[in-house]
């Protein structure tokens, strides 16, 4: 089971965090801080897995962003790497050549896509098509709504 997933930049800025275990906020912050420092200190050719406290950390860097998952001991490391890759593929497909800025400005979408892929720390749907279909259905619902924000957004409200 995945315990948490973190996305952070090369500068150590946290871009997304998703926790599947209940920790107090203080502990979450501590873990995040320590793990980011640990991962950033590693060199490029190093192994993508590390034993860290009582979890197994699997991480991979895509351009300026690190994707980092904390798994339990019996989880499969290589497949966790591919789970990260699948998530990146989904983001890429949805945003069209995703970059860090897309995730910053549309963090809620990044969450929604992750929720379709992983639920409660377990992989839910591995088919790229099915996940994108689910997200498309959500977007459709949103478009059908009256574009109430239109006027406000353009300062007419």
């Amino acid at each position: 089971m995945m315990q948490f997933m973190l996305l952070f930049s090369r500068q150590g800025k946290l871009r997304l965090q998703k926790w599947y275990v209940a920790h107090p906020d203080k502990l979450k912050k501590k873990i995040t801080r320590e793990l980011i420092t640990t991962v950033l200190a590693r060199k490029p050719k190093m192994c993508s897995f590390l034993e860290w406290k009582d979890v197994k950390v699997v991480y991979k860097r895509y351009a300026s962003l690190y994707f980092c998952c904390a798994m339990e001991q019996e989880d499969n490391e290589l497949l966790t790497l591919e789970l990260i890759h699948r998530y990146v593929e989904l983001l890429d497909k949805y945003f069209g050549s995703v970059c860090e800025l897309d995730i910053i400005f549309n963090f809620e979408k990044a969450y929604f896509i992750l929720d379709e892929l992983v639920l409660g720390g377990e992989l839910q749907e591995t088919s790229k098509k099915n996940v994108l279909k689910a997200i498309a259905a959500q977007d459709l619902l949103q478009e059908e709504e009256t574009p109430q924000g239109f006027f406000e957004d353009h300062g007419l409200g």
Partner: protein
Amino acid sequence: MRGLAVFISDIRNCKSKEAEIKRINKELANIRSKFKGDKTLDGYQKKKYVCKLLFIFLLGHDIDFGHMEAVNLLSSNKYSEKQIGYLFISVLVNTNSDLIKLIIQSIKNDLQSRNPIHVNLALQCIANIGSKDMAEAFGTEIPKLLVSGDTMDVVKQSAALCLLRLFRKSPEIIPGGEWTSRIIHLLNDPHMGVVTAATSLIDALVKKNPDEYKGCVTLAVARLSRIVTASYTDLQDYTYYFVPAPWLSVKLLRLLQNYTPPSEEPGVKGRLTECLETIFNKAQEPPKSKKVQHSNAKNAVLFEAISLIIHNDSEANLLVRACNQLGQFLSNRETNLRYLALESMCHLATSEFSHEAVKKHQEVVILSMKMEKDVSVRQQAVDLLYAMCDKTNAEEIVQEMLAYLETADYSIREEMVLKVAILAEKYATDFTWYVDVILNLIRIAGDYVSEEVWYRVIQIVINREEVQAYAAKTVFEALQAPTCHENMVKVGGYILGEFGNLIAGDTKSSPQVQFELLHSKYHLCSAATRALLLSTYIKLVNLFPEIKNRVQEVFRADSNLRSADVELQQRASEYLQLSIVASSDVLATVLEEMPAFPERESSILAVLKKKKPGRIPDEVRDSKSPQPSITPAVPINSTNNTNSSSADLLGLSTPPGTIATTGNGLLDVLGDLYTTPKISPNTVQQNNIKKFLFKNNGVLFENDLIQIGVKSEYRQNLGRIGLFYGNKTQFPIQNVHPELHWTDLNKLNVQMKPMEPVLEAGAQIQQMLTAECIEDFTDAPVMSVSFSYNNVPQKITMKLPLTLNKFFEPTEMNGESFFARWKNLGGEQQRAQKIFKAQGSIDLAATRTKLAGFGMQLLDGIDPNPDNFVCAGIVHTRIQQVGCLMRLEPNKQAQMFRLTVRSSKESVSQEICNLLADQF
């Protein structure tokens, strides 16, 4: 939401941390006033502000308002508003928040929606929070959604994982009964996504209740077989870079690891073996793509298959094939693969079937240890060398590890030192080699040699006469180096103090030379070492009266007699007086050679286990590589163990002050002195199983948090064991999860009933275990209980009081038949005998009480000597009954016992004899 985008841009444009905080505070004030203002906000505005709050929170700032507005969004009829409300709640709300009660109604409404997208939103929220309240509120609804025929596939997937999350919190929500088979049959679902989600759920259910869900094995094997034989076009979008359904394959392989062996049915077993072979064959095929995703997915399945093979540990050819495959990976270009191959081989090394095959890769592994660029890979190589070490390759491996230690990373040195020390001790056939290795360790990595390591070498030298002269000579030579590590001075000081006389004949190491050599290091050492050296000096006075004057001079020196350090001052003045006042007889008695230490598990091993819980391979190979036979242990004089002043005089222990700063309850050689049981994560506790030899009820384990009591009863070859878990604290203990391990799987069968994972404050709950003795066995099962207290994971490990004697049926018989049987059982293969020293003074009444609780019938008036005890009993096992006779003869003068056990089966005689030895 333009406002949000503007805000995010503003934050990104902030030049400094201060500017960012200022901008955020401004926004927070704005939002607060909007929320508090009279004007009612519409859904869009609420959504926008809630989203901004969420963004601020994700930047790392605390958010203490806005929750109610988010809750309001849940009941919005606009999906986008609802979705943001749910997101805010799942990111910001903790499981124990009062808010949860407020949102349950909204979730209920959405669960009943006809729109599957709304239903999924609700399910995702439940799975994200997964609190007890939620389990109560939705415990009946979600299982229905999962198995109902009308539910859409996407909803089923979410329902399965949602249920899994709630099950982890409150295991009782799974209905059981007819549901079991319906849940298992989800493995047959035509939709791959449903199967993938359901497999995770079933895996958790199986862990809790393996018997009830046994039916899943056949289905899982069938499904796996269909996947591994599928071509990559068959599964369409579930094929990942030409690998058919890797995630589902891995989950199925994991599921099968819950059973040993996965199936008794030959058909299923055969089919599984075919699957595993197919996976191996595919690994040999040329890759269908050059992309790393292809090889990762393919190898992920392969590694999981190997895990299953290791878990089953029964098919020699598969194990060897796994080993060869991993051997190829050892020289792969990908660091990740090398890392995993080393890790997986570590497990293979502990199987008797593949141990030899692993050893073939020794050279490559040694190269990995030396050449890998990544320290975590080097660490794996060290672990593997440790696991693959046995009598045949110990010298070479230890040599290589020593050589590598000179340049090894600081982060792994301490652990390597422990490993080298353990291997050297375990596989030493010649103890001079052992002494050399440890002295080399100190020379190369003195700073990383912990107290336990040098205590241990002294323990061993003291207990083994044949190595004492060699040890004295070697430390003497080592001390001649111009710079030597303080640990070397300690070992040297101790050993020369005890055995310096053995090398004093040589003029090059005459008493004067020995003393001056040691004393030349004195001024460079810490107070603790100086204290030890002072003790050495007085011992030298005893061994060599001719240097008395010179030593007295040292004691008298101001730096000692008036030392600012109280301990040194006291030692100097007391030793000085002792050397003046005492006659040579008294001196010889006071400073008599140290008695041998009691043999126990190497204290170093305990340290290593503590450092890396769960990563020290179990000793599967004990039969092949026995511990070096140790000279019979003479129990240590009790005053040495309990009376600290006498121990101090002997100078082995450092003063309590020093221990307290470094001490964390490690077992040192005088361990009983300073052990301080501390609660730390992953405490490994060894309870004294021996006391349960003679009784069935009592407290098995206790610390500040938890008490585990046991009550058991046995009939024939069956036993019922009740464990009582008591929470001693004011807070609930969570995720209580006991697990059993034992090696004699086919000799002893133990089933554990599931138990509540939560132990409320002050509460006690009971768990039942049933045991069946199939054949006589030696190893009692080890139970490890993991739980979390205050969110800190804890682990306790203890032996279950389940020993062979529990399956005794007492047998009455008269003297005539006793002696007739005794004589019949006179063969070499039937007898076992041990002579051992009494624990204290011999107490016949106490011995009698103990024997009465052991399980055999005490037979009075049979032995002509009234002090002797004879007993008879039958050991019940499923496959046979073994009659067993026992005679225990106390010898009051010598304070010794002689124990003889005779039975029709050699292993039974041995085991009963081993159990009873040293017990009286």
